[in-house]
């Protein structure tokens, strides 16, 4: 078995950790059923079950105030891990400790110190303005009215929310709703934030606003944040440290910079040409990823990027050119297919 790579990250005394997972594992029992009626009948008579290890032997610790990105392809075990950290599911093996408590016991003391934001689920009451949901949360968390008003005002200002708090949730845009969700999730001023895709489906502007809010919040309150996102921009902007999980195992734990350099030594260059060209025309510039008519995608090593882009522009009839990092899913996919990390 392969241990996680630790790069640029030194162990500090374990006592200080606010989140600690040790040998964490979760195995699901799923029905092994073939499709169709025959499969269903056979399953009914002869029930077979299979064990699926969603998470295996994951260990890490996070210190107060850290902003950590949690990366992995769909189904890699991110959500399962987050649910174990918040106490929503019980680990099959290993131990978890968050804010000095065992999450699965769901003690009030623990629940008052954490929050979970899920991009695809909402807690605000659909037909009412966010303020009504906030009032409910204030009561549930035992925040006095005066204090809760003060906190709402402060967070609303940080989130640039105003009148939206008085409009029914169903009439808000997705971006406004997400900001209101964040406000509701942070009213009790949790010390540890678990954010599962908080920018899912937001437009670029709204994403940027949520991002700057999270950075601001982390600085202002010293809160610890564990963030999963499909948008690499969220991770690059916010997370000095990332955890990478693949097929249920912790694959990497360290700085984002080292990870991207290692995982994506190349950048992606998209070209739009005047006239289509064959793949052989690009061989001297970089690796051809795809050619669709007049559009070409190339992978060019970071250190030669400027030089090669210059050559491309000089040599070919280029209509448009853009440079980007390949999507994180691609980076991770390539990595595991190539077995580049030994």
């Amino acid at each position, binding site marked *: 078995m392969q241990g996680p790579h630790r790069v640029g990250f030194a162990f500090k005394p374990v006592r200080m950790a606010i989140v600690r997972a040790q040998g964490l594992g979760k195995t699901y029992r799923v029905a092994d059923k073939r499709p169709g009626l025959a499969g269903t009948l056979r399953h009914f008579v002869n029930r077979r079950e299979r064990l699926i290890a969603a998470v295996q032997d994951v260990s890490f610790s996070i210190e107060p105030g850290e902003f950590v990105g949690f990366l992995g392809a769909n189904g890699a075990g991110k959500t399962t891990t987050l*649910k174990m950290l918040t106490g929503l599911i019980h680990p099959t093996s290993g131990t978890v400790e968050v804010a000095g408590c065992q999450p699965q016991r769901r003690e009030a003391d623990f629940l008052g110190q954490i929050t979970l934001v899920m991009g695809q689920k909402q807690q605000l009451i659909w037909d009412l303005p966010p303020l009504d949901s906030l009032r409910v949360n204030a009561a549930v968390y035992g925040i006095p009215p005066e204090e809760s008003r003060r906190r709402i005002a402060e967070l609303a200002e940080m989130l640039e929310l105003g009148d939206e708090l008085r409009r029914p949730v169903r009439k808000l845009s997705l971006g406004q709703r997400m900001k209101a969700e964040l406000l509701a999730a942070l009213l009790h001023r949790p010390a540890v934030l678990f954010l599962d895709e908080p920018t899912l489906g937001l437009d670029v502007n709204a994403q940027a606003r949520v991002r700057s809010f999270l950075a601001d919040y982390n600085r202002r309150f010293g809160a610890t944040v564990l963030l999963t996102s499909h948008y690499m921009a969220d991770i690059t902007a916010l997370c000095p440290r990332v955890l990478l999980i693949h097929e249920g195992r912790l694959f990497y734990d360290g700085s984002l910079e080292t990870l991207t350099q290692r995982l994506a030594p190349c950048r992606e260059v998209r070209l739009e040409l005047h006239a289509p060209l064959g793949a052989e025309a690009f061989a001297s510039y970089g690796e051809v990823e795809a050619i669709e008519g007049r559009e070409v995608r190339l992978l060019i090593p970071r250190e030669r990027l400027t030089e090669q882009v210059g050559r491309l522009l000089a040599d070919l009839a280029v209509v448009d050119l853009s440079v980007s990092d390949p999507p994180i899913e691609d980076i991770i996919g390539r990595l595991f297919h190539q077995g580049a990390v030994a």
Partner: protein
Amino acid sequence: MGRYLSTLRIFWIASLTAELEYKANFVIELVATAGNLVGSIFVLSLFYRRGQSLGGWSWEGALVVLGVYTLLEGVTSTLLQPNLSTIVAHVRTGSLDFVLLKPIDSQFWLSARTFSPWGLPGIALGAGLIGYAAWKAGASPAPLTLLAAALMLVASLLILYSLWFVLAASSIWFVKIWNATEVLRSVLVAGRFPVSAFPAGLRAFFTFVVPVAFLTTVPAEAILGRATGPWLLAGGAVAAGSLVVSRWFWQFALRFYTSASS
């Protein structure tokens, strides 16, 4: 305890605000409930037309039973139905996670989150009918009788709540449990009549299996001042037992949810 009370207040204010957007509902509900009640009284009167009686109950006594039933229906529409029917939705959409992450009892949250005013006409009509029929039946408003009546009504509500909650909580395994609560609701219709009006087999079923007897007949007996000690004790015991079972069942269901959900 204080936190639960203040939370309850906020819960109900929030849901009232949401519901009162639809004021016409109130009138419609009042008319529908009154219509239903008139229909039930008519059906009941058919039994008594030729001087017969229903299971040994006088006309006024049977009206008290019907009053208790109407009152329960009102409470069902106000609290049970709006709250417990959302458990299924919570399980399906995964928003149960948010409930479980709140530092408050999850059963309390799920059972008391919403207050729908549309059952209030039923509660008022039921209470009115109980008062009128009890007065016609010559029941004395002695303090002890009132106390016993109040206790048995509370017991009846707790039993109904627990039954319903257990069924709704089963949605953690069977997400389409909604039909089962409909079945429960139709079985409870039997509570319109005194339990002694049914044949012996059904009577046993309605007493020991689905405790319909404790829902309407026993409270009615208490209101009429006829409840005997053993029945009062049994009513209290069944209520306490149901409540304990519902709490235990919820913890059990949650253990399953928290070890199986993804």
